[in-house]
Each structure stands twice: as structure tokens, then as C-alpha cells.
């Protein structure tokens, strides 16, 4: 199964929560997923590595890409997470009825959710009628990643190093917004509703970049904006705004 083109690093880190032993899985394109050891052991491959000993840091080759890894771990996580009562969790329910259990700290990246929790109104589940499950899962992904990056204990390599012009989080963000227009707008609306400044800024900037330097007609095409001016109105508008087009 070993393929030299990919590498996955498994390392054992005991974080603040000393009750559950955690394990970090890193996919080939650099994304880390921290999961409980018990959860990771759902994979026999990983289980054997852990059981065989020296696993403070291990490299193994798996031909697994990020999406695959995340889908398998998320399935596993949802099975096991109910047993783990140590980290405070909160359940978010999407408009189409799907429930997502996340760490409270991650959910609080959303100011809206933060206020709900602080006001003491989050008993069982927090319903989010304006967000579908597909979008909610992406938003959670964003919040997790940014929460993780904020809490990095290892001093991060800043953009000072000449060869890495962007820090890893910026690269992740760039990949995150490589989605179709519909998803992008859904993310914008979700970020607005949930009041997640970072995500709103990121998605809005992405849309702005799609508009930069384009002529109005090109912008209309990109976003399917219907020109509702009559030919006369348009001529008038053009004349009035002529100074902007010189």
C-alpha cells in the first residue's frame, strides 16, 4: 500500500485535556486531523502502528487524500464522540435536519452561536434554520482549522522565510474558497448569519477578486447579473459615469 508520493504523519500529542489520548493524522496535502486515539484505531493500519510501539512520531505512507481522510474520520468521529464526555461539546442542527456535534470552543468562532451559548439558551441543540448541512459542515471545517491554528503551541514559521511566501493558513484558506459560485454565496450568507468575521472577510474578498479589473459586461457574465436598463437608460447611465471609464 505504501506509495512514495504521499506521506502521513502520526504523532501522539497529549494536549490540555489529559483524559483522552489524542493522535494527529496528517494527510498528503498537509492537513491535520486531531482525533481521539480510540477513534483513530478504527483504522487497523493505524491501530497496528500505535500498538507496535515508538509512535511519538511516525511516518507512514497512505494513498489517502484529504477529502477521503476527512470523510472516513468524520464518520468514525460521529460514532465515537458520544462516548467522550470530557471536552465540552455543542450540537448544531442544520436547516435540513442534520446534527453536528462540535467542540464548544470551535462553535464559538461564530459570534451568533457564542451569544446563544452565553445567554444560556443552548440546551440540547442549536438550530440553524438558515444553514444547510453541506454549508454547515464546511463552516465547521473552517472554524476548526482556524481555532487549531490560533492555539498552536509550536511557534509557527512566519512569512519571514523567503521561500514560503504565504503562511500555511493562508494557503489553506485559498484552497477552502475554491468552490463553485453557489457554494461561495451560501458561505457568505452563512458567515454573515453566524457572524464569523474571518470567514466573511475571506469569502467577500474572493468575490471581489472575481470582479477585479473586469469590464462591467465581464462582471455581468461572471455573476449572471441581468442588465435591466433599457437601451436609453443605459446610454444615459454611461454618459453620466463616463468619467469613471476614461
Amino acid at each position, binding site marked *: 500500500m505504501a506509495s512514495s*508520493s504521499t*506521506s502521513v*504523519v502520526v*504523532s501522539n500529542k497529549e494536549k490540555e485535556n489529559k483524559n483522552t489520548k489524542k493522535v494527529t493524522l496528517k494527510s498528503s496535502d*498537509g492537513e491535520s486531523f486531531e482525533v481521539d486515539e480510540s477513534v483513530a484505531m478504527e483504522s487497523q493500519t493505524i491501530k497496528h502502528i500505535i500498538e507496535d510501539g*515508538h509512535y*511519538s*512520531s*511516525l*511516518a507512514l505512507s497512505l494513498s489517502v487524500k484529504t477529502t477521503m481522510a476527512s470523510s472516513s474520520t468524520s464518520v468514525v468521529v460521529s460514532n465515537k464522540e458520544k462516548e467522550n464526555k470530557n471536552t465540552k461539546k455543542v450540537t448544531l442542527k442544520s436547516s435540513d435536519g442534520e446534527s453536528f456535534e462540535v467542540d464548544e470552543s470551535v462553535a464559538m468562532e461564530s459570534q451568533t452561536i457564542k451569544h446563544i451559548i452565553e445567554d444560556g439558551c443552548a440546551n440540547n441543540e442549536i438550530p440553524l434554520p438558515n444553514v444547510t448541512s453541506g454549508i454547515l459542515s464546511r463552516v465547521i471545517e473552517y472554524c476548526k482549522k482556524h481555532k487549531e491554528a490560533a492555539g498552536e503551541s*509550536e*511557534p509557527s*514559521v512566519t512569512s*519571514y*522565510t*523567503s*521561500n*514560503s511566501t504565504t503562511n500555511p493558513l493562508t494557503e489553506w484558506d485559498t484552497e477552502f474558497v475554491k468552490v*463553485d*459560485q*453557489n*457554494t461561495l*454565496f451560501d458561505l*457568505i*450568507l452563512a458567515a*454573515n448569519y453566524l457572524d464569523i468575521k474571518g470567514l*466573511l472577510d475571506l469569502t*467577500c*474578498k474572493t*468575490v*471581489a*477578486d*472575481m*470582479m*477585479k*479589473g473586469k*469590464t*462591467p*459586461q*465581464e*462582471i*455581468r*457574465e*461572471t*455573476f*449572471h*447579473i*441581468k*442588465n*435591466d*436598463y433599457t*437601451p436609453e437608460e*443605459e446610454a444615459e*447611465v*454611461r454618459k453620466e*459615469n463616463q*468619467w*469613471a*471609464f*476614461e
Partner: protein
Amino acid sequence: MEEESYGSSERSSTSSEESAPYSTDNSSHATNPKNSEEEEEESSSSDDYPSKRRKLGPIVEEEDRISTLPDSILLTILSSLCAKDAVRTGVLSKRWAYLWTFVPSLRFTDYYFRHAADRANFVDNVLLLHRASKLTNFSVEVEYNPELKPRVDLWVRFATTAKVDQLSLLLSSCFYKLPQHLYANEFVSELNFRACEIKPNGLVRWSSLKRLCLWNLALHQDVLNKVLLGSPRLEFLELRNCDKFNRLDIVSESLKKLVMDSYDEDYPLELEIVAPKIESLEIIGDFYGMKKCQIKNASALVEVRVDFVIRMEYEDEEQEEDHYKNCENVVRELFESLNQVKKLIVGRWCLKVLSIMSVKHLSSPVLNCKCLTMKTSMEKWDLPGIASLLQNSPYVETLVIDIIFSNHDLEFLDRIYDEVNHWKSKEVYFKSLLQCLKTVKIFGFGERFHTKDVFILVVEFLLKNAKVLEKMVITEPWVMQNGIHNMQLKFLQVSQKLLSFPRISPHAVVIFPF
């Protein structure tokens, strides 16, 4: 065409198709958004006339989602655009007609207009129509001449009336004298001035100012004093290519980060920083003469970047040697005040000075840093410096080596010292080192370096002596992304050689992310 990439498979399920059949080549691409083909033909024949002339029958209505977004979000989007692009959205459709006039961010920073007069006219027109009562950002980048003074004064007045948060005047070729009313402003939190004349008649009162960047302008000590005194919340100060001073005392109770970038004057610079809360310091760029650089009370200092060069004209090797004697003192004194810093970035020139100090057996101060970054060209004259830094940083946990290009060779040292033997002799003292080193990251290991003996020597050494090493990552992102085949092969060969070196740490992993 851009549409293709926007998950067309999702689209086809939501879009409603009209009954009229399409031409055969379209029907085979069932998921292809039909609009794109229409508009492709439209745009080639006309420039801005709407796609009302339909050549292929009724169009599938692609949803115009952007226009359905609430105003506040659209304004956030427009805020990222430069003023020219923002203004042009006014012609998109009725919904967009006067939206831009409420945009809280006005950036006149693109290079669209060739003549300064045109740029000035454009700014004037925008300000006439602009309706937002509050500005978050007002930035102008223009080539200045004294004739523009009255207009620029008006723009500044416009911005301050709108209680602007961030004001940037980035000018060039001539100096613009800031209007006096600007020195007393309680709303502004960020100021960026380039080629401006700062001469307050009275006191400066910038009670909300947090960030200040001054580029290419004359700075007098008394003006700097007024500014620092009048900015009790100042957290970030950047001075780039400023002149007309030989000695600078930077005194601030609130300052958290200082960037000192380049200096070009007749007399060597004396810099003294008194900022008890300062956390981050950067001394970068070219200094045509530096006599002293000291930080008093650096107890809060966490992160420092010393990536500068003290330049001097010298004609022969003797002058070069003298020049470096002075530099040694400056660097030593500087490093002495950095001994508590946790994260240190050392540039290539400073590393070379440390090399010289090392071969002359001059002592270097001990550092307590946990994360050390070295910028080096991995040439022979970096070796003693690297050795010296490692020797003086016993607590370092993360080491980052950034390999860069350098054509800076210290020829006068060649005839006196043998750097490799120097390294080997130091190895005796290295036994007690690297006790804490856990992570090593090496960037820029490119084609030119794979044969470099220095690089291999250093890696071998690290693997042999870092007892608790967990991870060593060696990357060359540029080569890997561009996939130049024989480079990749050489990379592989060297990486295999490196992997074969003995490691003292049982858990160490060497990773070459491809």
C-alpha cells in the same frame, strides 16, 4: 470560460430548462450552463449590450445570486476593490446603480491613470458623489506636485470629516506638507505616510492611533517625540527609509512592535529604544552606517528579526576588515540586549558577522531563544556563524534554516581561516548542545544546494547530535511545484544520502514533503 468551473453538475439540477430544443452540440453537454455559450458569442460581437439577442432559443436562467445579497455584504465586497472598480459597478444594473456611493473604503491605489491630474480629477469626482457618512479606509497613491496641494488638503479634510479609521497618503517625487488640523484627530487608528512633510506646530493628539508607518520622509527627533507623546495607544511603528536624523530615541509606553527598515545618511545611526511593552522588533534593510542599536529594558521582547546589512564603501581588503571590526561591536551589543528573546530570526549578513567573530575567537552572547531562524546561503563563510549561534542557543527547540541566494563573500577571511576545520574543532563543544532541539525545518534546498558540502555537513551534524529530535523537514516548494524533472531526481538522490546518516534520536523522522 469561468462558468465551467462552478460545479456545473449542481447547477443543472436547480436551473429550469425551457422547452425549446438546443442544437446538437449543446445537448451532449447536459451539464454545461447554456448561458455561457450565449454570452461568449455576445461578448465577442459587442462590448456591453445585454444578452437580449438570443441566438439559440430561450436561455436557462442562471441565477443572479450576487445581486440578492444584502447591501451590507455587497459593500463589504466593494470595500476590497479599488475605487475605480467599485465605481464601475454602478453600471451593472439598477440594483447596483448607486450602491458604491456608500462604500466605506476608498482606495485610489491602482495605476490606471497615467497622469497625476487625471487621478486627481477622478478622486474629486468620486468624493463629490460619495455618500457614506463614515469611512473605514481612505488611501491615495499618487505622484505629487505642489500644484496639487489644495486638492490633497480637501481630500484629507473629506476623510477626517468622515471620521476615517485608516488614512494612507502614499506620495512620490515631492513632499506634501500635512495640514495642521490632521495632527489633532481622535478617530484615526492607522496612518501611513510616504513622502509627506510632518511638521506639527503644536502638540500632536492622535488618541486612537494604533499603527503608524512612515516611509521616505524626513524625521526629526523633536517631531518623533511629539508624535510618540501624542499617541498613547500606539502599538505598531514602522520607519522605512527615513532620513534627516543621526540619532533616534524611540520612547513609548504602549509600543508593541517596531520595524526599522533601512537608513541612508552621512553619519552612522545611533538607535535607542525605550519601550517596556515592546514584543516584536525588526531591524531590516540596508543601513549606510550604524554605530549603535540598543534596546533598554527588553523584558517583554519575544520576537526579533535582525536581517540587515551595514553597508560601506571600501576600496581594499584592509578597509573591509576595519569596517567589519566596527560591525562586530554593533552586532555584539545588539545581541546582548536580545538574550531573553524567544523567537529570533537572523539574516544572512548578521550571520556572516557572527562567523567573523567566531573565527576570531570573540565571544558571542548566550541566547535563550526557543525558536531560531537562520537565513543563510549555506556557503563556507556561514559555517562558523551557524556553529556560533547553535552553540549560544542551548534552549532552542525549533530550528529553521532558510536557504537564500547570496553573492556576498568575505574574501579577506579566506587567507586567514579555514572554516571547515574550525567547525570540526568546535564539535567537541557541541556535545552538550542541542538538548532541546525537537524540530528542524529547512527551506530552499534547491538545485544549487544539493551538492553543497556545507548543507550536508550541517544536516549530518544535526542528526548526529540532536538527542530529542522528532522531526526534520526539508523542502523546496518551488522545485517541487514546478516539477523540473532532473532536479527532482537530484533531490531524491541527496535525500537518500541524508536519510542514511546516523541519528542519535530514536524518534527522529526526516521528511521530504513532495
